[in-house]
C-alpha cells in the first residue's frame, strides 16, 4: 500500500517530526542524566507515564485549563525526579556500577505497578481540549496539537539552552558533565547538579507523557516501558550524553518510524526502533555524530560487581536439599502446592540461565524472557507443525534457543556495562515483535494452542506430582551441569571477564568466544525452561513471556547472589513460591518484586548467598 502522491508522505513526515519531538523531550533528559552521572536511567519511561497520569488527573478530575496542567505536570514530575535521585540513587554513589542501573530498573517497576494499582491497568482516554482545526499544507495537514507539540519541543530546547549557557547552575551542570571530579574540586556542588538535572529531565519527560497522551488519546500504566526505551534509542543514535545529538536522534527516530509504518504497517513500528538501536550500537556505539575514536564513556577501571564472600553450601547439604525436594510429593499431596513449586522450578531454569550471563560473565541481560519465548515456540511448533515427539522437541528447543539467542546477542558482545543491558532489552523486544509479526510461522497474535503435554510411553505427565517432578529433575540436572562448568577453567575465565575484561583480554581471553559460550549454555537452559512451560501451559502467545518476566528473573538472580547456582534456585523458589503460598494478590506481586529488588540493591547487593 505505497502511497503514490505527495500528500500522504507529507503527513508521514509531519507525524514523524511530531513523534520525534516527543522522543526528544525524553532523550534530552536521558542525555542530561547520562552526562552528569554516567547512568542510563531505565526509570525515565515511568516518569513519562506518571506525567501522562498527572495530566489526566488535572484535566478530568480538577478540570484545570491546559497551560496550568502543563505547569502541574512539569512541577510534579520534576519533584518526582528529585525524589528518585535522592532516595534511589544518591545512596548508591559509592556502590559498584551495577547498582544504580539495577536501582533504576527497580524504581521503574515500582512506579509502573503503583500506577497500575491506583488507576487499573486499563487504558484511559484524556479528553482533548484543543480546537479541532487543521491547516492544509500541500496535500497534508497540520493540526493544533502538532503545532503545540512542536512549540513545546522548540520552547523546551530554547529554555534548556538558555539555562545551560547563561546560568551559574547551568554552567555547573556542564562542568560536571565534562569532568565530575574536577568540577567537585572547583567547588561545584555535585549533589545539587544531580538534583537539578534529575528535576529538569523528569519535568521534560512528564511533559512528553502528557503530550503523547493527548496525541494518541490514550494512556496506560505500562506506556512508559516502550517510551523509555525509545528515548534511550534516540539518545544512542545521537551519542550518549550529547544533548543536541539526542534531539537530532529523536527526530531521526521519529521519521524512521513514521516512514517504516508507511511502508510496512503499524505492527512493525517498534521493530524499526529496536533494529535501528542494534545497528547503531554495533556500527557506531558512540552515536552518529561522534568524532571517530572517542574515549569510551565508561571508566576503564572500577568494579562493576561488588566484592563478596559467597556462602559455600557443603556438599552433603546440597544433596540433602535435592533429595528432600525430590521426596516432597511423597509427603505433600495438595496439587496446588506442587503446581506452584513446579512453576517455581521452571522459573528457576530461567534464573539459572540468567545468573550465568548476568552473574558469572557480568553481562546484565534485560531481555532474558526472549530466550524462554524462543524455546517455548520452538518446542511447540516442532511438535505441532513438524510432528517431532515432545521428548525430542524439548532438547531441540534448547538448542534452537542456544543458537538463536547467541546469534542475536552476538553483535552486542563488543559492548560493555549498561550498553549490554540496553542491547539485550532490545533483543528481547525484537523477539516478541518477530513472534507477533511472523504470522506464517508463529500464528501471530492468536498464539499457539493445543500444545501437547509431555508424555512418556503414551502416558501424559500432567498430574500434580509430574508437574512438580519433571521441572525439578530437569532443574537439578542442568544445575549440576552448570556447577561443573563453573568448576572448570571456564568458570574462572568467565568470571575474569566479569571482573575486568581489559585484564582478561590482556591474558589471552577472547571475549567474544567466551561470551558466546556463556550465552549458548544460558540459551540452552532457558530454552529448555521455555519448552517445558509451553508443554505444561498448552497455550502460548507473544505475551506469555513479557519484559517484566526478565525483570523478575533478574530479581531472582540478585536475591540469590550473582552467578550463584544455588542462589538462582533459591531466588526463584522465594519469589515465585512465597507470594503464591501466602496468597498475595496477583496484582501486588510485581510491586513486591520491584521493592525486593530495590531493598536488595541498597542493603544486600551480594544477595542471600553471595556473588560467586
Amino acid at each position, binding site marked *: 500500500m505505497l502511497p503514490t502522491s505527495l500528500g500522504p508522505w507529507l503527513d508521514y513526515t509531519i507525524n514523524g517530526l511530531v513523534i520525534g519531538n516527543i522522543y526528544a523531550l525524553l532523550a534530552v533528559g536521558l542525555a542530561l542524566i547520562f552526562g552528569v552521572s554516567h547512568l542510563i536511567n531505565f526509570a525515565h519511561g515511568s516518569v513519562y507515564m506518571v506525567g501522562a497520569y498527572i495530566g489526566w488527573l488535572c484535566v478530568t478530575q480538577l478540570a484545570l485549563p491546559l497551560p496550568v496542567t502543563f505547569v502541574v505536570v512539569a512541577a510534579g514530575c520534576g519533584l518526582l525526579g528529585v525524589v528518585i535521585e535522592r532516595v534511589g540513587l544518591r545512596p548508591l554513589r559509592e556502590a559498584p556500577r551495577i547498582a544504580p542501573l539495577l536501582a533504576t530498573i527497580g524504581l521503574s517497576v515500582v512506579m509502573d505497578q503503583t500506577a497500575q494499582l491506583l488507576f487499573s491497568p486499563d487504558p484511559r482516554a484524556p479528553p482533548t481540549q484543543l480546537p479541532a482545526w487543521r491547516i492544509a499544507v500541500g496535500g497534508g495537514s497540520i493540526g493544533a496539537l502538532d503545532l503545540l507539540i512542536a512549540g513545546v519541543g522548540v520552547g523546551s530546547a530554547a529554555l534548556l539552552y538558555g539555562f545551560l549557557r547563561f546560568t551559574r547552575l547551568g554552567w555547573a551542570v556542564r562542568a560536571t558533565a565534562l569532568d565530575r571530579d574536577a568540577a567537585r574540586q572547583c567547588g561545584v556542588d555535585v549533589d545539587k547538579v544531580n538534583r537539578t538535572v534529575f528535576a529538569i529531565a523528569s519535568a521534560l519527560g512528564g511533559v512528553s507523557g502528557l503530550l503523547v497522551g493527548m496525541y494518541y488519546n490514550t494512556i496506560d500504566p505500562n506506556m512508559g516501558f516502550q517510551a523509555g526505551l525509545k528515548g534511550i534509542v534516540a539518545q544512542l543514535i545521537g551519542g550518549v550524553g550529547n544533548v543536541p545529538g539526542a534531539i537530532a536522534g529523536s527526530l531521526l527516530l521519529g521519521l524512521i518510524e513514521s516512514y517504516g509504518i508507511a511502508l510496512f504497517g503499524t505492527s512493525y513500528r517498534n521493530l524499526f526502533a529496536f533494529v535501528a538501536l542494534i545497528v547503531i550500537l554495533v556500527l557506531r556505539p558512540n552515536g552518529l555524530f561522534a568524532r571517530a575514536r572517542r574515549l569510551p564513556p565508561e571508566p576503564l577501571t572500577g568494579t562493576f560487581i561488588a566484592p563478596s564472600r559467597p556462602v559455600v553450601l557443603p556438599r552433603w547439604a546440597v544433596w540433602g536439599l535435592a533429595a528432600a525436594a525430590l521426596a516432597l510429593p511423597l509427603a505433600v499431596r495438595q496439587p496446588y502446592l506442587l503446581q506452584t513449586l513446579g512453576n517455581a522450578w521452571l522459573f528457576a531454569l530461567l534464573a539459572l540461565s540468567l545468573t550465568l550471563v548476568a552473574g558469572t560473565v557480568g553481562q546484565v541481560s534485560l531481555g532474558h524472557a526472549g530466550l524462554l519465548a524462543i524455546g517455548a515456540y520452538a518446542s511447540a511448533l516442532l511438535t505441532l507443525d513438524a510432528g517431532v515427539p515432545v521428548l525430542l522437541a524439548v532438547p531441540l528447543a534448547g538448542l534452537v534457543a542456544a543458537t538463536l539467542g547467541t546469534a542475536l546477542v552476538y553483535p552486542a558482545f563488543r559492548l560493555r556495562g549498561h550498553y549490554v543491558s540496553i542491547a539485550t532489552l532490545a533483543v528481547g523486544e525484537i523477539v516478541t515483535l518477530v513472534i507477533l509479526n511472523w504470522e506464517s510461522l508463529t500464528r501471530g497474535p492468536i498464539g499457539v494452542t493445543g500444545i501437547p503435554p509431555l508424555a512418556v510411553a503414551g502416558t501424559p505427565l500432567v498430574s500434580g506430582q509430574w508437574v512438580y517432578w519433571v521441572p525439578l529433575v530437569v532443574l537439578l540436572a542442568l544445575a549440576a551441569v552448570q556447577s561443573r562448568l563453573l568448576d572448570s577453567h571456564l568458570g574462572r575465565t568467565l568470571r575474569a571477564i566479569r*571482573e575486568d575484561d581489559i585484564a582478561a583480554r*590482556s*591474558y*589471552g581471553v577472547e571475549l567474544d568466544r567466551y561470551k558466546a559460550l556463556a550465552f549458548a549454555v544460558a540459551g540452552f537452559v532457558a530454552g529448555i525452561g521455555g519448552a517445558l512451560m509451553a508443554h505444561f501451559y498448552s497455550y502460548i502467545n507473544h505475551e506469555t513471556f513479557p519484559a517484566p518476566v526478565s525483570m523478575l528473573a533478574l530479581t531472582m538472580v540478585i536475591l540469590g547472589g550473582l552467578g550463584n547456582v544455588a542462589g538462582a534456585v533459591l531466588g526463584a523458589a522465594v519469589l515465585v513460591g512465597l507470594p503464591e503460598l501466602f496468597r498475595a494478590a496477583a496484582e501486588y506481586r510485581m510491586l513486591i518484586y520491584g521493592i525486593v529488588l530495590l531493598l536488595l540493591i541498597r542493603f544486600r547487593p551480594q544477595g542471600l548467598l553471595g556473588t*560467586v
Partner: protein
Amino acid sequence: MTSQPGKPLLEVAGLTRRFGGLTAVNGLDLTVGEGELVSVIGPNGAGKTTLFNLIAGLDAPDAGAVAFDGRDVSGLPAERLAALGLARTFQHGRVFGNLSVLDNVLVGAHTRLRAVRPRPRLPLLGPLAELALALVRPAPVRAEEERLRAEALEIVALFGERLTPRLDQPAHSLSYANRRRLEIARALALRPRLLLLDEPTAGMNPTETAEMLAIIRSLKGRGLTILLIEHKLDLVMQLSDRVVVMDHGARIAEGLPAAVAADPAVIEAYLGHKAVGGLAEPDGAEPDGAGQGGGNQHGERPVVARAAR
C-alpha cells in the same frame, strides 16, 4: 624459540597516539633485545602507560609500527599478543577481585591451555569442543589443570610467604602491595617472552620495594626480557641494562643508566616538571593516574639529580 642474545625481541618504530589535541606518544622508537631489561622513565603524563597500552594491543596507534620477535604485530588485539607471549601488569592494579589468588594466577596461564583448548582453532567447533572437554574433563584435561596448579603454586612461592597463605582468598581482600605481587604472579603464569611491568613498586614501602627489586633481578637472571616503567630511580639504576627517557610522548634520551642520569636534556625535563611523583616519597603514595598531567603533589627534589648521586 632459542635465539641468540641481543636479537631484538620488540621493535617499536615511529609510534604515535593522539588524544584529541594531546599527543600522548609522539613518534617513539624503542628496541628491546632478547634477555634485556629496559626501563622507561619520565615525568607524570609523559606517555609511558599509553606506550604500554599500544605495545600490548589495548590501544591502537595513530601511526607507527610494533614488531614482536621479528613479526609485525601492529593492530593485533591484546588477546593475540598474549598468545604470542607478551604479558603486562597494570599501573593501578587490575586483579580479578572476586577470584581467588590461585584463580587469578591460573587465568594468567590461559593461553597455555592445550588439552582443553584443542588445536586447530576451528570457528564453531573449537568453542564447543572446549565446552565439552570442560564438562567431561578427560584425563589429559585433568592432568593439565593439575600441572598448571602446581606451577601456579611455585610462582606464588617466589613471593615468599606474602601470597602463599592467601591462595584461596579473594583478591579483593589482599593488601595493595599484595595485589601488585599477584599481578606479577599472574603475568609470570603466562610464561612470557616479554614482560611489561608498569610501576611494579608503586605504593610499596622501602622493604617491599627491595623485595620486589630482588624478584625482578631474579627474573632477569633467568633470562626473561623485561620492559619496566618505574619512578623509583634507585631501582631503575640498579636493574636496567638500558634506560629510555620519555617526555611529552617523545624519547628524549636513551642509553646506559649512568649516562642517562647525567644527560642535561633529562635533567631539564625533570626540572621543568619539578619532580616525579611517587619517587621522592619512600612510603610511595601512588602517583596520580593518567589525566593529572605533569603537575604532581609529591616529591620536592629533582629525581635525576638524586639518582645520579
